[in-house]
Structures are given as structure tokens and as C-alpha cells.
């Protein structure tokens, strides 16, 4: 993958559509700030830490650990057939955090905090993880 150059004042070029397409292809994409090194997955125009717009688009690790989660029992329409599942924040091995979900989790003993998980390419919406 080629990284895309950005300069002060310009947007970082990764659109929500591109981000979602990358997810469909099995890749988690986001930014690394060339100025301060901060890594972030959300669609941003400038670095929230140093406020510079010198961002590099990169691909992140597909594995990480569960920081926290809720077990969703009542879900929005897209996820209605998936309940119960864990809606989780995962810290990827190369640093950034991302919100995703893990199917087939119905009780807290199914998913200890710190559980190692892997991003899974899926036709389902959102960023799907599975336990390693």
C-alpha cells in the first residue's frame, strides 16, 4: 500500500467509504501523525494530539486485546439477529484503539478483560473480532 501525502490544511484523504471498503477487504486502516507519531483509526483531518495535519495513511495490526465491553441484549436493526454479542473496545498490538464487536458472547465469563482477539474479515457490519 502506498501512503498518501498530506499537508497542513488539507484533509487526510481517507473517507468513511474507503475505511469501510478496507474493512471489507480485511484491513484496518487509519493514520499515523508524521509530526508526533500519534496513531488513530477514526476519520480525522488533523492530529488530535499535536493539531498538525501532516498525516500518513497506514494499515494497523489485526490482533489486539479487549480493554472493555458491554454485552448487548437489545440491538439496533443491523445487529438484531446477532444478540447477544459483545460491543467492545480493542487495543491493537501497534497501539491504537478501535470499537468493534464479538459475536456469540452472552456472559462476562465468555470474555475476560485482556482477552486476545483477532480482526475477522466478514460480510457482517462493523469491525468483527474473534477470540484467539
Amino acid at each position, binding site marked *: 500500500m502506498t501512503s498518501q501525502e498530506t499537508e497542513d490544511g488539507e484533509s487526510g484523504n481517507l473517507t468513511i467509504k474507503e475505511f469501510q471498503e478496507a474493512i471489507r477487504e480485511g484491513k484496518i486502516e487509519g493514520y499515523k501523525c508524521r509530526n508526533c507519531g500519534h496513531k488513530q483509526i477514526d476519520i480525522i483531518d488533523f492530529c488530535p494530539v499535536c493539531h498538525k495535519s501532516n498525516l500518513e495513511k497506514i494499515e494497523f495490526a489485526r490482533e489486539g486485546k479487549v480493554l*472493555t465491553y*458491554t454485552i*448487548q*441484549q*437489545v440491538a439496533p436493526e443491523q445487529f438484531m439477529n446477532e444478540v447477544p454479542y459483545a*460491543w467492545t473496545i480493542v487495543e491493537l498490538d501497534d497501539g491504537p*484503539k478501535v*470499537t468493534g464487536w464479538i459475536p456469540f458472547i452472552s456472559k*462476562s465469563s465468555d470474555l475476560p478483560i485482556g482477552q486476545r482477539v483477532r480482526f475477522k474479515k466478514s460480510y457482517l457490519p462493523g469491525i468483527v473480532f474473534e477470540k484467539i
Partner: protein
Amino acid sequence: MTKYGTTEEQLANVAVKNHENALYNPNAHFHKKITVDDVMNSVVVASPLKLFDACPFSDGAASAVLCSEEFLRKMNGHASEAIKIVASGRAGGTGALHQRPDLTTLNAAVLAGREAFKQANLGPKDIDFLEVHDCFTIAELVALEDLGFYPRGQAAKATEEGETKRNGETPVNPSGGLKAKGHPVGATGVGQVVEVYDQLNDRAGQRQVNNARVALTHNVGATGGSCAVHIFEKR
């Protein structure tokens, strides 16, 4: 809960208190007394939050008239019930939960509260009661800690011990809050101001807080992406 040992029953106490307050608010969405068991037995929505931990969507409206001191002078004693805004703090924060270094605080609320207390030259001890954005039971506890009314992790125990009841040391949400007065999203913030107006004018009926002279409102939007804190005084 992992960090401070807060229990689901302690969360339930927030809902029970706010429903109790709303019994005496004729404009509240719910006039229904509930118990800790009612909350604990309600359907789980997203663990550990259950149906009775959540505020409802409500229909509603609220209004306030803003005017200058000069205008009030020209009113020659009319509008004598007007209250004074002594501080107005607002701050932003990240909307995405996963970007937050700490999930037990809203940085926007910490900053907005600090700004408001600085403008008013007051501190939490000077506040006679407050209306906070209790969209969920846990949000009331986080608000009280963000605003400095309790040290981190201690608002749950204080609530359990009744300190935030109408007649407690720090009355919180005498209106019933978002939880029981209701959450008509666009009207919620001004609705808090209406409660402050009634309380500071000693016209809140059975839910009146004794000797209410200084009050604070805390309103949150965008999952904590924005927070406004105001402090009001009787003139």
C-alpha cells in the same frame, strides 16, 4: 465497576432517587415510584445497564427569557423573580469512546465545570443543589465526580447513603432528572434551568430544596463530545 467496585445496586439507587423526586414534579414524564428490585429485575439492554438505568425519550418543551441587568432595572420591580447566571462554562471532548484515555470520566465535563467554578469564583461546597445530565444512572455518578463534588469512585456510595436526595447534603436532580422528569433532547438543557428558576424562587412545591440560593446545571451532548455547565444565583 472494575476500577472502583461500584455495584449494579448502587447504580439502581440513582434511578430510585430520581423517580422519587419526579413524583412531586407535575411536569415529569414518570410519576412512578420504583424500588432497587424493580431496577435490578428490569430487562438488560447493554450490560450492566438495564431498562430502568436509562432515561426515556420524552416529548417536551422548555423556555427561558434572557435579559440584561439594565432591562430588569427598567422593569421597575416587575420580573423580580429573575435569577442571575453567574457562570457559563463549555468545553468539547472526543465523541468516540475508544479515543478516551479514561472511560470513567468525560473530559468535556471536567473542563466545563472547572471553567464555570473559576468564573463564579465558587466551588462545589458553595452549590446548594444541582441538575445533572443523568441520561443513564452511571452518568449521574460520573457527573458528580467530574464536577468535583465527590472524589473518583465515591459518588456511588454517597448516593447509596442518601447524600444526593432532596434533603441530603448535596441534592442532585430534584426535578427527577433526565431519568424521571424525562429527556426531550432539545429541551433538556433549558428544562434544567427552569427547575433552577423554580427552586431559587422557592416555588418548587413538595420537591423544594431548603435554602436554595446557588445552583448548578450540567448538560451533555454527543456522547460527551460537548458539555455546558452553568451556575445560577438568586438575585
